[in-house]
């Protein structure tokens, strides 16, 4: 039985990203999804789960989540050391960084697990297509965000940014990977849009015979999008 813990779905649910989980639910027969709310103790504190997932949220919600997870920072670090699989999407990535800086210079302290920090620019939303690569798998997705992350992730990034930016407009390295902790700004839902990556991801959880839900259709959509994204004429902004 594959156990996936989804953290704080009542507030961490923006931009269609709950369908990463619904897609896994449809693709893996023996799977249990544990939805942990803000008032619960996270399951990972006392129990082994195969994957911990967190989707994007509002800026106010980021503060609630940091406050909630702060007492478990050491536990999260320990789990990452033990190769626990995490997938954190969009600004959920910023929770695990050093701090989030507002336009006025004020800072919200993060969990300090990654060496990145984020800067918000609330009046300028950044939108872009994204084409990246992990090993030999090409990744397609979208970026839509107020904040960008900064700091050196050149030795622990998740995707090479082939087109579209990495963690900020100057970076060619997208996201963070520390052992099996994966965080990325790429929206999609990434697992629906990238069947090869989803298989790669499920293999990390020890699943061998993988038949994704509607795999043929998902692959067809992926190929169309990849062709569009690789087309030099395609506008990325």
């Amino acid at each position, binding site marked *: 039985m594959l156990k996936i813990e989804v953290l704080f779905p009542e507030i961490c649910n923006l931009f269609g990203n709950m369908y990463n989980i619904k897609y896994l639910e449809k693709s893996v027969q023996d799977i249990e999804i544990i939805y942990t709310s*803000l008032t619960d103790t996270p399951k990972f504190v006392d129990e082994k789960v195969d994957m911990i997932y967190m989707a994007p949220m509002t800026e106010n919600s980021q503060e609630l989540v940091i406050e909630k997870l702060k007492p478990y920072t050491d536990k999260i670090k320990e789990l990452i050391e033990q190769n626990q699989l995490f997938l954190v999407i969009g600004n959920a990535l910023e929770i695990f960084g050093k701090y989030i800086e507002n336009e006025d210079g004020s800072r919200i302290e993060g969990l300090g697990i990654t060496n990145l920090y984020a800067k918000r620019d609330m009046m300028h939303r950044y939108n872009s297509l994204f084409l990246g690569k992990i090993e030999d798998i090409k990744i397609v997705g979208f970026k839509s965000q107020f904040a960008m992350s900064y700091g050196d992730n050149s030795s622990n990034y998740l995707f090479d940014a082939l087109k579209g930016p990495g963690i900020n407009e100057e970076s060619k390295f997208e996201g963070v990977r520390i052992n099996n902790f994966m965080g990325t700004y790429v929206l999609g839902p990434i697992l629906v849009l990238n069947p090869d990556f989803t298989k790669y991801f499920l293999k990390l959880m020890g699943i061998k015979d993988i038949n994704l839900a509607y795999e043929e259709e998902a692959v067809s959509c992926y190929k169309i999008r990849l062709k569009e994204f690789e087309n030099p004429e395609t506008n990325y902004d």
Partner: protein
Amino acid sequence: MIKFYIALYTAKIVRTMLKILGRKATFFPGRVAITICKDFLGKIDKPKQIIGVTGTNGKTTVCNLIIDALNKNNYKVLDNRLGSNIDAGIAAAFISGVNIRNKTKYEIAVLEIDERSSPKVFPYVKPTYLVCTNLFRDSIRRNAHPEFILNIINKNLPVETKLILNADDLISSSLGTTNEKTYFAIDKLDTDKTESDNIINDVRICPKCHAKLKYNYVRYHHIGNAYCPNCGFKSPKPDYAVTKIDFEKNKIAVKRNGNEKFAQKGASLMGEKEYKLISNSIFNIYNEAAVIALLCELGMEEENIQKVFDEENIVGSRYKEEKVNGIKIVSHMAKGQNPIACSCVFDYIRSEKGKKEIILLLFDLFDAKESSENITWLYDCDFEFLNSNDIDKIIIGGPRAQDFYLRLLIAGVPKEKLVFTEEPKETANYLSLDKEKDIYILFELYDEQIANDVRAEVKNRIQNSTKDKTEEQQISGGAN
């Protein structure tokens, strides 16, 4: 002031030239004026009373109803309904309303204000009343999430503006800190639930203590009446409540609740009045309630408001229904990239009686030309509502057809009910043209021309298949 007058006269000349060229001149003169004089909106003379209308959905409908009501009651109304709802469109409206000595010819203005434009509008234009219809998720690229929109309106909201707010919407009802507020709402309905069945509900936790909220009833998404079992926080009490909806008689009853404000003005104000129901969709009943609340607050006699609604109908390009040789064809606009608007239309269609076949044309025309559409919104949108026994076939057209196809499969719609084609016009070929099945064409705002072409093709096919005469009958209705 020299800069201001240069801006005003230049804008007036530009406006005249555009008019001569047969253009609408509802945006560009305003942009010219603001470019020359940054605080142009602050300096131009404005009507004494300004009614602003903002919110995610329903702004245009509410504005149109207010303008019609005021016109019918002999007010001289300035508005921006033919133009844009951002700062330049609002400036263009004011420019059209002043003479060369910068004196306005109007006593009242009704302005649709884009919710994101408030930082550019509210420092200079301070509405007497601001109606906020609702705040929902909209385009991810532009509006991000409703908390962001709430914050930017709040940051810029003039303290003297009186707010007309939806008590059933815990996001927009929290607008304003010290502003005077009047709330409208719809009382509990038989169709209400206690748990939202939408993918999106952006008010699941108490805004005060963050415990899980309980809903006395939830209508759709976060619209409903909620309370916090932990700290006692609850939805505001409406000053104007729709207490009855009679779809058969086309009537609604609106009650002014007997709060202190009305008691001070006189007991006669605390009764319940009937109004004509101008549309059978719940979204438009909210719009109607917002307009009634505003007009009452403006001091308009209820009898006069009743007369206004007696002559109103919500029709137009958003919804069009006709029968061709006994087959019902409905065209329904469903704002693309807006998961709430599309979910509402899907919900409306599934609740309509009878078997249906649906043509989906919800792709973004502009992205299709030069980019690749951000399709994250498909996964915030309730395509699951289209997984219904009464929906026999869904035909998807356009460059993103396969993305919609995959989304509908994930929503549980059986493969055999789905067809996709990249060529929108070809969608008509897959209809059964069975008289027992109504045809719904759902189209994105900017795909209207394509939808019209598809509709013509559908009619052609029906006519060719039976060679009978076409009977057209315009009927009003729709989800929004």
